[in-house]
């Protein structure tokens, strides 16, 4: 039995690591999305975290934990720096500005050979990241998100998401709330970048571009932005999907696309909304509403 487990782990540990890592990034985005910040800065934040932490371990000889912290901190600082101007922008304009940030970071990484190695990247990075590091990070983030969501802070954020005029008028400092979430998102993505860098021996600028940022957004969205477990489910699903469909060879891309489309169409509230589907003909939450409106009329 234990032989079986160790064999399983030896064969699949990287998949497990990637699931956790992507979940972590997914939660970073989840926080941003919860205040309607459709951020494409993820790639940039991860790059900051990754390069900074690798510099710390490989050049400065830092131990692992402080190096990860330094990476996360740098990303958080980056978020704070661009946050002030960028948070004034609405919707798609915000999206473009954060994307511009990611692109600028990527181009710098491509050109700053002495630190980043340019396109060739940095290899032979010591492998420090263990599965339990990732699991712990995800657990901490889930705890924080869970606790905050049910507090007045969470309510304020929900108001900011839907109508910032209302939120302001109720005394919510909209800017500070969004900024702190953006910084938190930067911190988490930076930490994820640092952990990723010490997972696979190698980093290069190609790891942190637009694709990375868009993928990171799809985790919480596909999982369901209204459910706390959404990013976890979304990340695991998207990470496992290419592995699970490996048998299909050339048709893999097509099948993968079709599966995602099917999920979105059948669960338009995200994968987590499967729990709101009609079980036994009644929709969860529906009875309550019907009862309440009935009362209202009597």
């Amino acid at each position, binding site marked *: 039995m234990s032989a079986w487990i160790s064999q399983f782990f030896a064969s699949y540990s990287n998949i497990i690591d*990637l699931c956790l890592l992507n979940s972590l990034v997914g939660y970073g985005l989840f926080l941003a999305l919860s205040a309607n910040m459709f951020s494409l800065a993820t790639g940039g934040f991860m790059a900051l975290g990754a390069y900074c932490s690798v510099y710390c371990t490989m050049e400065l000889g830092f131990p692992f934990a402080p190096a990860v912290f330094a990476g996360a901190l740098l990303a958080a600082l980056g978020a704070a720096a661009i946050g002030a101007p960028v948070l004034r922008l609405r919707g798609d304009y915000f999206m473009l500005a954060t994307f511009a940030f990611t692109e600028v970071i990527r181009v710098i990484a491509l050109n700053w050979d002495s630190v980043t190695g*340019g396109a060739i*990247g940095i290899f032979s990075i010591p492998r420090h990241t263990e599965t339990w590091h990732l699991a712990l990070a995800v657990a901490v983030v889930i705890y924080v998100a869970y606790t905050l969501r049910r507090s007045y802070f969470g309510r304020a954020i929900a108001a900011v998401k839907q109508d910032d005029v209302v939120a302001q008028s109720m005394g919510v400092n909209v800017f500070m709330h969004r900024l702190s979430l953006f910084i938190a998102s930067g911190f988490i993505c930076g930490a994820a970048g640092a952990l990723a860098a010490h997972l696979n021996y190698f980093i290069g600028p*190609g790891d942190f571009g637009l694709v990375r940022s868009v993928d990171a957004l799809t985790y919480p969205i596909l999982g369901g932005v209204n459910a706390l477990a959404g990013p976890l489910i979304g990340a695991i699903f998207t990470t496992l999907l*290419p592995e699970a469909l490996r048998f299909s060879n050339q048709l893999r*891309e097509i099948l993968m696309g079709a599966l995602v489309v099917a999920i979105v169409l059948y669960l338009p509230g995200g994968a987590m909304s499967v729990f709101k589907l009609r079980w036994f003909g009644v929709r969860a939450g529906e009875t309550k509403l019907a009862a309440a409106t009935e009362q209202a009329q009597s």
Partner: protein
Amino acid sequence: SETPVNIGIVQATSGGSAALYGLMQKNGAELAIDEINTSGKLGDYKLVGIHQDDAGDRGQSVNIFQRLINQEKVAVILGPTLATSAFAADPLAQKAGVPVIASSNTAPGITDMGDYIFRTSPPESMVFPGVLAYVKKKYSPKTAAQIYGIDDTLMKSAYAVHKKALESEDIKIVATETFQKGDVDYSAQLTKIKAANPDILVIGGLAEETANIVRQARQLGIPPSTVILGANAAISNKLAELAGATADGFTVGSGWFIQYDSPKNKAFVEAYRKRYSSDPDNFAAQAYTSVYVVADAVKRAGGVSDLKKLRDAIAATKDLEANNGSFSFDAHREPAVTPKVLVMKGGKFILAAD
């Protein structure tokens, strides 16, 4: 009864331009495996190719390596397609003691990852100096311009090799331009290069990019007297097709080319065309060679029960008859081939007449 020898083939067949190279190598490798199995030259051993598509994504490459090593118990891994994937995944194989033979990674540092890592693709540094020497002898250029893909590991390292070679040949670099993956318009860079009026133009790009750069360069009026040189990776049948007549005179170096005159090569090209109804390129040829290297080593090592022995046998590969003459590994597990200089003429690469 037969003893299977599992060979992992990690090549991208989907997900972007990597698929172009991955597919070719997968084809070449599978062709070789079938040939060897039907020839019966390995006796009781039967090669079993296990292809896995990593979509050019190195997270997936690592996943695949783990599974191939621990679950499929492969004897050797061919690939992966991209150098970035190699840097992430090869250390796993090195640690587990499973030999890896790359047939498209031409970046520097690949074989430095450990003594289980080999490649059959000659690195740019082995090929380009010969090409430049030829051009220098023939045209005695004084100035050069460079253009390369800055976000591509392969091209970035090719650029460094080109630059070093130009400097050591005392050719002055008058313009250095870059482009990125997915760019289709190079006119801004080429206009700048045209203004610098170089004697030669060195392109660090993949086949399709190179084809377009060549075509646009001529269209913008960079004269035929400016000789255009390319990187090893630019050798593809696509080049002539996309660039048309403008590609005439385009000069490259390669460890292999399709018209290479040897019975082994003729048979390879023939078999490849028959099976895939298209022409092989040098990546297909190198993957094909890789499989023959493995088969040879299996024979000499007397099986695959001891991978250390297999590794040693691979490292000892010497003068194996291959489709580009005879094949050997040098002490650094790099291919010891004599590169040839090829010139495009009328839509075909021909061996440069010295």
